[in-house]
């Protein structure tokens, strides 16, 4: 017979203590301790999830609580998956995700690599670099609208300075081709420091003595980088990708503040689209199905990714 860990701990409890709390078995006491957490999790996580799944099969509208709720089966799902507008949003999200992650990991790693060198004042530089991520996304969105302003914006001015183009000749936010890049740039500016910090933790986890051994084994700096630095920092890099991926999949505040999803629908990410369906058009059933689809997508991708991550860690 296998003994559960709780029973094992219970067996170690001095009988005097066990007796003093009359009427409760040790098992009951254990449950009393975890009950508040379990209750909270059920109330704010599990119940809403189940309720959302239930609503996704109905035509319920939360602004018309007195209407009859009809069971519509998979109609919501069918409508979402065949809607070209939804697919456009998905594409915009994918574009945003791929480019922000690529740029942030690349720049973040390079910054971490440079800051990891021992030089005077690298702590100060770290603090300066980390600054953007301490700001509120709404604030960042707001001041990037000024930076992108064609007549007075610093961004346009800098681009104009280097290319010789007229700064008023292009508008990062107003142009359908440039707007998707406008949000990528702003997000990269804000979150690259975060990736840098994770990469820095990774690089600092590699002991100097490993490099010294490699130095004696006559590995060039280049070979040391590819055979030691990259493989040993890889789990951290992958963790950074995971964090940024999940965070940016639900990106809302920064982009709403910056472009409001426009021009047209070019920067309407799925979370913005979902918010409109749910709380502007009040299509509760439809948006519930939308939310379930997004949940399954993120959850699926993340689990595959975490499996890969664990494999890398075990190596």
């Amino acid at each position: 017979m296998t003994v559960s860990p709780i029973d094992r701990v219970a067996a170690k409890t001095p009988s005097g203590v066990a007796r003093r709390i009359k009427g409760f078995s040790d098992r009951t006491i254990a449950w009393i301790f975890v009950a508040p957490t379990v209750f909270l999790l059920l109330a704010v996580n599990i119940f809403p999830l189940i309720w959302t799944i239930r609503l996704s099969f109905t035509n319920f509208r939360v602004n018309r609580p007195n209407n009859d709720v009809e069971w519509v089966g998979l109609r919501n799902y069918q409508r979402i998956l065949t809607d070209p507008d939804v697919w456009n949003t998905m594409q915009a999200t994918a574009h945003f995700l791929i480019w922000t992650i690529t740029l942030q990991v690349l720049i973040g790693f390079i910054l971490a690599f440079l800051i990891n060198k021992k030089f005077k004042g690298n702590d100060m530089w770290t603090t300066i670099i980390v600054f953007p991520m301490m700001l509120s996304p709404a604030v960042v969105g707001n001041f990037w609208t000024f930076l992108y302003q064609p007549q007075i914006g610093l961004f346009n001015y800098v681009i104009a300075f280097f290319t010789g183009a007229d700064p008023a000749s292009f508008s990062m936010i107003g142009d359908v081709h440039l707007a998707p890049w406008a949000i990528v740039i702003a997000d990269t500016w804000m979150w690259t420091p975060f990736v840098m910090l994770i990469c820095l933790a990774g690089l600092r986890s590699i002991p100097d003595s490993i490099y010294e051994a490699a130095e004696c084994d006559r590995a060039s700096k280049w070979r040391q980088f590819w055979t030691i630095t990259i493989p040993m920092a890889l789990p951290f890099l992958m963790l950074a990708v995971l964090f940024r991926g999940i965070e940016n999949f639900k990106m809302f505040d920064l982009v709403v503040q910056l472009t409001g999803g426009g021009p047209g629908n070019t920067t309407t990410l799925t979370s913005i689209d979902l918010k409109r369906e749910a709380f502007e058009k009040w299509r509760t059933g439809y948006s519930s199905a939308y939310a379930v689809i997004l949940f399954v997508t993120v959850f699926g991708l993340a689990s595959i990714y975490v499996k890969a991550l664990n494999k890398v860690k075990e190596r």
Partner: protein
Amino acid sequence: MAEVTLTNVCKSFGDDVALDDVSMTVPDGSFVVLLGPTGAGKTTTLRMVSGLDTPDMGKITIGGRDMAGMTPAQRDVAMVFQQYSLYPHLTVRQNLEFPLKSPILRTPQPEIDRKVKEVAEVLQISHKLDNKSTALSGGEMQRVSIGRALVRQPSVYLMDEPLSSLDAKLRSDLRIELKGIQANSGATLLYVTHDQIEAMTMATHVGVLDNGKLVQFGSPRELYENPVSVYAASRLGQPRINMLPADIFGGAPAAATHIGLRPEQILQGNGEDSTVHRIEHLGDQTRLHLSFKSHDLITVTDAHTDLKVGDIVKIRPHEALYFGANGARVA
């Protein structure tokens, strides 16, 4: 293979003087052991020769060439680190292959395989070749770390307490093995330890370091029989040399304040009385702990001795070493 020389080498880390004007010649093909307690500058010496650290002053040559400004790779040294420093994400085999896969060497794969196999057999780690290097015991890691140096034929091997975390049997096996490899290949080896048996059995030369200073350099025998100071004398010998006031037996030179007696320098059978207060039977010999004029002495005697605690043993010194007040040898 090559001769290594250090000339007036100094090194400080902040206010700590790690090496103070050390000059030493490691002859080509010799096995030099550096002895000294923690902080004496043994590891620092190795790091200077390897090129991982640069001396503040002085000159280091390997094979007659000045090593100033040369990287460890250019110096062609192989180093065994005290803390193993294995590549944790690689297997044992990949760790052993790593130095051979250097583009400088261009070793063909069959040659690499042969060498790795050979070294793994010597170090008794053949069955672990495909394990992750982190999934090994401390002793196994240490052997892989030695192996990583042995797969190459560098101009100098540098080893920092390579046998310290092995069990007694493996340690004596590897001692013989290392000595054999060094003797057969004619390699120059600079070896750090504080195990005096390793020093006595393997070394052709021993250097004794004290607080960053090289106090004596010579063959193990020379050091044992002719130490320059109390400090050098107490580095070698098991049981340790006995230090007593110089006048305890009489006949001491005028400048001497202490007499140093190694166990075999205490002759038993005649002379003055001492009392046995402990007996340790070690199998091949017996250690006697004696009380002599309220001083404790340790000496060795016949393995099958009939002596018991409380017995009286007559002792007298034979070819004793005398030291002055500052610890230096006077006679």
